[in-house]
């Protein structure tokens, strides 16, 4: 399998010369096509910074990031927007749906920004809605939806453009356990059936256990890596918990 994402010696510093904070300290990482990777770490470990660098929301201090062979650290202006539009899909903790648009329109917007024509938009929205089981809420506004429904709409919006990489930032962070489970199953389903490549940042061990590989980050460095392999989800979950306790951070959060 080809590597969709290649991260090479990336560093990200904040602050001035006198008080330097190394948010990311020399990380290298590969994600191959169709993989579901979770990045775990405590608050301040640098996991969200890493995601922001991949999503081009933030810029690297040093190093290179290649998505589908293209070096995105050198992209500028409209090429950057084009990259985000065509290669990436986003899912955020606080959903980030437009409250003035219906669920349908929120999903459709990702395609209409790409200048797709209406008939094509319509078929695709219907198709995606079916996969994520949100058919019956398409005409509702975000304020009428529950957190889980909102997050599935956001997921639909993220995958409808068939991006090479879906970036999810704490997607279960604002959800109750039942909705979390539903959403994670949906992501798993997307990964299985649509061969979507997903990179998820989380500090929730349960969420991470749905991934096929978990990467642990501590103080801006890769600390450990777990591969699910032939484990059941339960066994994988236990392994994750072990590493989390080793990491020593946020035990309460992880459980």
């Amino acid at each position, binding site marked *: 399998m080809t590597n969709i994402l290649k991260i090479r010696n990336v560093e990200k510093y904040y602050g001035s010369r006198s008080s330097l904070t190394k948010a990311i300290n020399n990380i290298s990482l590969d994600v191959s096509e169709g993989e579901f990777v979770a990045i775990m770490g405590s608050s301040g470990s640098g996991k969200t910074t890493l995601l922001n660098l991949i999503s081009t929301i933030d810029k690297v201090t040093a190093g290179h990031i290649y998505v589908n062979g293209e070096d995105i650290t050198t992209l500028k202006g409209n090429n950057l927007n084009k990259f985000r539009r065509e290669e*990436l899909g986003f899912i955020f903790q606080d959903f980030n749906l437009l409250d003035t648009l219906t669920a349908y329109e929120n999903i459709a917007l990702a395609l209409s*920004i790409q200048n797709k024509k209406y008939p094509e938009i319509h078929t695709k929205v219907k198709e995606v809605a079916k996969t994520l089981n949100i058919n019956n809420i398409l005409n509702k506004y975000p*304020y009428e939806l529950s957190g889980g429904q909102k997050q599935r709409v956001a997921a639909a919006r993220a995958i409808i453009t068939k991006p090479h990489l879906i970036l999810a930032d704490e997607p279960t962070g604002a959800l109750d356990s039942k909705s979390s489970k539903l959403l994670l199953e949906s992501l798993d389903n997307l990964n299985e059936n649509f061969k979507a490549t997903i990179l998820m940042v989380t500090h929730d061990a349960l969420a991470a256990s749905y991934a096929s590989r978990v990467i642990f980050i501590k103080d801006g460095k890769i600390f450990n890596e777990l591969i699910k392999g032939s484990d059941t989800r339960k066994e994988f979950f236990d392994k994750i918990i072990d590493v989390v306790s080793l990491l020593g951070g946020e035990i309460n959060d992880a459980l």
Partner: protein
Amino acid sequence: MLYKLSLKNIKKSFKDYAIYFITLLLGVAIFYIFNAIDSQTVLMDVTSSTKEIIKLMTNMLSGVSVFVSIVLGFLIIYASRFLIKRRNKEFGIYLTLGMSKRKISTILLIETMIIGLLSLVTGLIIGILLSQLMSVFVANMFEADMTKFTFIISSEAIIKTIIYFGIMYLLVMIFNTISVGKCKLIDLLYASKQSEKIKLKNPILCIIIFIISAILLAYAYWCVSFGVKQMDGANGIFIPIILGAVSTFFIIWSISGLILKIVTHMKNTYYKGLNSFTLRQISSKINTTVFSMTIICIMLFFTICILSSSLSIKNSMTANLKELAPIDIELYKTVNMTSEHAAEYGYSPEVVNDSKITIKETLEKLNFNINDNFKDITDVYIYAADELTTKDTLGGSLNYVKKNYPYLDLNSSEAIMTISDYNKVAKLYGNETFTLKDNEYILIADFDGWIGIRNRALKEKAPITILGKTYFPKYQEVKNGFLNISSNHINAGIFVVPDNAVNDSIKEQEHLLANYKANDEEGKKKIENKISTLGEKAYATQTNLSASTKISIYEGSVGLGALVTFIGLYLGIIFLISSAAILALKELSESTDNKERFRMLRRLGADEKMLNKALFRQIAIFFIFPLILAIIHSIFGIIFCNYLLETFGDDELLKSIIMTAIFLVVIYGSYFIITYLCSKNIIKE
């Protein structure tokens, strides 16, 4: 400490305050300029009659200033409420840190004071500078010589501005204190987190309401344009105004739902680029601001009507004069006054005696020799008979007129002239002359409203009876002409009859028309001064001789035109600024929400060009929508003003509409551009 915090806040949120500050500044400057006109005119070389008008104008302007300050007061309170809302979170943090509400009020108080003082001082400076330009404009309007330029500062206007705005700021402070006192901590902290509830209106209801209000509006339009002749009296105008306002409200209420419904069905357009986003943004904004949109629309409508009418009045008034005051002077007095008439109007027996002699003889008694001062002297008489009142002239159309014009007095006697007298006048004025057979009459008038009524009677050849003899109309329509010189078309009707149709027993008035015997303006002014001093002579109390002169009519209409123009400009500009400022503040106050939304779109991969286009469209439509409705209103408003004032020709109207458009584009347009640039700045990452 609090003072420091306030100062820092202002510095930090200067971007938010910019529009507010500019509006205050403009308000202060305009307030000063129009209240300082008084002192701008002090040094102007003008006649006493113009001085009178200027005095009247400054009185009216200070009356209007009270109204203006009310409008501005509301605007300022509205604006400061917006600014407070924007800072909910900040206040929430202060409260959680243990600051008391009183201290927060104090912070706001200090901020209002700083902003108020700054805007007053800068506004006054700008006002003082601009008012120097204004004095040139004032002199131009009153056609006075600007012999020397003096830099004038009106301390009176400065004090007035300070007092009026001081009161406004005081009110703002009170309102701020009240609104801070009422707010709850939880709402302050989570104000931005609450996702907006979209109240979607039932589209069918929208369509029904839209159609009903469109019909009502069309009826209101009809009332003031094509159906204007059927309006009964002055009160009739309130019906279309109220109908217009109410239907405007409901059109705005229903239109966003309607358009949304239509466009969402045009799927190819709706799902193109950011169209769906832009449309939803606009529609939700219009939905939540129906009331202020209505106010803005009505204010814009008033602005357009006031500006275009007032600007054209002056020009058309002076343009009319050449035609309507073709001679220098018209003297007139009642002849053969009866003792009953004298008793009714309170004339002394001396006046009755004076009515037995001619105008020429009266003037001699006033030591004024007409041959030395006048040329082209034309002496004519007006006759009136009890048997020829208005209702006697209408024939079969009497009932129609009674029904449709119930406010007209149909019982007063009509003016009658002999054909030879009228032809003398017509020749002097350069109007059409006529001939008559023994049993014919001609009706002369130039007042449009009356011409319509008269033509109805003439069409059916309504006969008239004078001294027992009957006459029929020679023409089946009113002929254009007049006797009295004036600034407007005011001749409601003169019946011109054969010379032998009347005799001395029904003689009513003598009119003496003449030009001044002088070769230049200087000489004419000298004679004019002689005429105006006649009233001080001893014999003046013993006659009811009156005079209209071309110069006094001219000055009167120039002054009146200037007065209307100034008041129109004053109100128009204030209305324009207020409506533009409300729109701008509304747009900017939502910029935080917008910032989130645009950040989202950026993550979805929308490029800057797309985002700027969406933002531009959103703001443009928000600004243009009330303007378009106001322009449609104004078309009919101007038609009505035109009918009412009967003064402007098409050329003048076009000129003033262009002027109004320039005002609109400059003021409204600048607010639009500033709003766009500020919003663009806010959504930038």
